[in-house]
């Protein structure tokens, strides 16, 4: 099946408008959560307020307030026991020319002892781990059986534009009962992932994500390791009565994104790994959370950073933790030298805005059990070497002539709000006496929950023209190397960091706040902290109409996206 887009003419110079038209959920009558949550704390419209620190007073005038959108939960009216129990992710090896059938469906998943209706690719959480060789092309036939329209975006893959999975831009949404066939060409080695690009604040949060691991033909591409493990980091917002509903017409949590209260690794709350003493484990990390940035660490184990989104770093480095923002991937080698149990932690300095304080917050993500048995020592010793990657440096050298020239485009990240309750506005104004570079926790759960995509517009503004988001109209040619400067304006109403994702191309982060990046790696997603100015260099190698957006799901659906065209033929 060839992809089609109805009413192409509607897209005109602003193809992203077609994407915007798909944002509101279109669901059958009765899918909203009203009446489904008959318990004491249910507020009007089926809403229940997310958990918040009981020591923090509720904002005056907001008691009983709910977001100005309808509440949505999946599978309303469906007998949970009739749903298939979700299964852990399986590995699917795809050779060149192979075809994989993927069904998007409702599944039954148990989280902390309670069953929920959630979504799955082929009934799995995460979706199947697809493994392929660099340079191959395989086919994925996707059938949608959930109540929402969906697509599959192949995040980070320099894929043929027709199969990028952006509704209204590269394809029509896949309606309930419909199918779409993707041809996935994988020109780069690395850990990629796939997820919906229709209301991913809902669908991705409910389990629609999976990894695509593309191997290099070079057996010495990475250094030695005893084994490889995939860790998909996520969180989900729940209280003791279950999942907090999502917004139907527009996302809730538009200011800061929807932070979860329960941490998940590979969809599990009790991720465990058993290793031998001295074993070197290569972890492929992917953050699929809506908004949470993790600071992952393995206390007592030594760790080095090896690669990121689209390949290896110029050189390996020892690191004490891995800060990983939504949609980013990192590859780390970790050696476990001490027998016993060690926990995998998310260690952050959270902010208590009411008290005006930082405080340490530690979440246990999983457990590693290290046996007394010694792992094969040659590999363990090889871990001591930090590799210089001459192949990466040679590739990047071809772009160095562009490093010092002025930017071709400058973007400013900011936001506008309207019709927010006055007490929220007043609190935010005081709060901006200090805004941290990164938001690690939902420090204002009620205000955040009440802000929706109908009241908040997150903005990428072209400094030269003043155009914003969908009105930005950039055109490039295949072979162009484009320098884009992104400034995250700290004087906005509520500034926040943004993980900026560029579809279909690869880029280097050249410098931050005037400081050159000493260790480059090809990226498709990178963070712009509050107040910072980040220069990226994009290699426009892949023709088509592409998106660039913030990968905090609620920011994306509050408008923070633009599209650009790359003309010409693929090399």
């Amino acid at each position, binding site marked *: 099946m060839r992809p089609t887009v109805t009413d192409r003419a509607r897209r005109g110079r602003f193809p992203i408008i077609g994407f915007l038209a798909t944002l509101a959920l279109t669901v059958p009558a009765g899918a909203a959560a009203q009446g489904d949550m008959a318990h004491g704390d249910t507020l009007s419209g089926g809403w229940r307020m997310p958990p918040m620190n009981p020591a923090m007073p509720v904002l005056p005038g907001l008691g009983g307030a709910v977001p100005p959108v309808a509440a949505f939960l999946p599978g309303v009216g469906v007998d949970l026991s009739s749903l298939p129990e979700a299964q852990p992710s399986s590995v699917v090896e795809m050779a060149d020319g192979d075809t994989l059938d993927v069904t998007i469906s409702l599944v039954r998943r148990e989280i902390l002892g309670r069953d929920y209706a959630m979504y799955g690719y082929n009934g799995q959480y995460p979706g199947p781990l697809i493994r392929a060789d660099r340079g191959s092309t395989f086919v994925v036939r996707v059938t949608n059986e959930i109540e929402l329209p969906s697509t599959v975006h192949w995040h980070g893959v320099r894929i043929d534009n027709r199969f990028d999975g952006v509704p209204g831009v590269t394809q029509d949404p896949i309606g309930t009962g419909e199918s779409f066939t993707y041809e996935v060409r994988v020109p780069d080695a690395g850990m990629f992932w796939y997820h919906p690009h229709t209301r991913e604040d809902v669908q991705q949060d409910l389990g629609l994500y999976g990894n695509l691991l593309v191997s290099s033909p070079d057996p010495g591409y990475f250094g030695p390791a005893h084994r490889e493990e995939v860790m998909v980091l996520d969180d989900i917002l729940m209280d003791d009565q279950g999942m907090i509903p999502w917004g139907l017409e527009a996302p809730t949590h538009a200011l800061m994104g929807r932070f979860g209260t329960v941490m998940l690794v590979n969809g599990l709350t009790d991720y465990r790994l058993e290793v031998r003493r001295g074993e070197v484990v290569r972890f492929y990390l992917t953050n699929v959370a809506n908004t949470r940035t993790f600071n992952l660490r393995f206390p007592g184990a030594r760790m080095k950073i090896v690669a990121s989104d689209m390949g290896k770093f110029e050189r390996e480095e020892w690191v004490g*933790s891995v800060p990983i923002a939504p949609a980013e991937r990192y590859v780390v080698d970790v050696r476990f030298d001490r027998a016993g149990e060690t926990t995998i932690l998310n260690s952050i*300095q959270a902010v208590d805005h009411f008290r005006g304080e930082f405080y340490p917050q530690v979440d246990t993500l999983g457990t590693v059990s290290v046996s007394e048995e010694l792992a094969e020592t040659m590999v363990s010793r090889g871990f001591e070497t930090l590799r210089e990657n001459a192949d990466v440096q040679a590739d990047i050298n071809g772009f160095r002539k562009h490093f010092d020239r002025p930017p071709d485009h*400058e973007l400013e990240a900011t936001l506008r709000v309207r019709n927010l309750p006055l007490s929220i506005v007043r609190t935010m104004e005081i709060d901006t006496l200090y805004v941290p570079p990164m938001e690690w926790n939902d420090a204002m759960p009620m205000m955040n929950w009440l802000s929706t995509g109908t009241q908040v517009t997150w903005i990428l503004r072209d400094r030269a023209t003043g155009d914003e988001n969908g009105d930005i109209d950039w055109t490039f040619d295949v072979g162009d190397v484009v320098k884009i400067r992104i400034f995250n304006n700290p004087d906005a109403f509520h500034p926040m960091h943004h993980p900026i994702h560029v579809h279909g191309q690869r880029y280097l982060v050249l410098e931050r706040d005037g400081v050159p990046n000493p260790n480059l790696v090809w990226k498709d997603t990178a963070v712009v902290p509050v107040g910072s100015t980040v220069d990226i260099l994009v290699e426009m190698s892949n023709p088509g109409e592409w998106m660039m957006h913030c990968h905090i799901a609620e920011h994306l659906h509050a408008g923070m996206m633009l599209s650009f065209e790359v003309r010409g033929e693929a090399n």
Partner: protein
Amino acid sequence: MVAASAAALFAAVLGLEGPVPPVRAAEASVACGVTGPPEYYSFPLVSTKRVPGSGQATGLGELTFAPSPFGFALSPEGNYRYRVSLTVDRLAPPATGVYVVWVTTPSLDRIELAGAFDDRHAMDVEVDFNKFLVVITLEDAYDPEAAVWSGPIVLRGMSRSGMMHTMAGHGPFEQENCAAYGY
């Protein structure tokens, strides 16, 4: 007019009541053309006027992240790791002794010796406190083993994060009893 209609559709799709006028280029923030330490996180170094030759002195602390492969730098515990560039103008050389730079938490429970100020009155300091003070003192001599200053404070400054304080008793929480929260 294409742009205008696109904006209208954009607003309509997002459920806005009408198109929100975009800020044009001339009205947009002027900070975008500059690269360097974020002005937002810079903080002044203020003279105590207690030391001869320092009454007219002014200084600045500018923050960038310490080198990191992740784009921003964190300690394993999640503290920001900053490189603070300190510069001081109009500070006379000391008649005797040496200017010494210290970094401390606001509660002074942790004090770190950063080093002696050089003749340029400039220094880069790495800090992993989320809130911190920079203190420049006049010491008889530089003692790399010193745990705390003994001379007079010449200049001091506070990180922008130090401005974050309790909302109890302020704004919408002005009716809250500060004492109930320990303030």
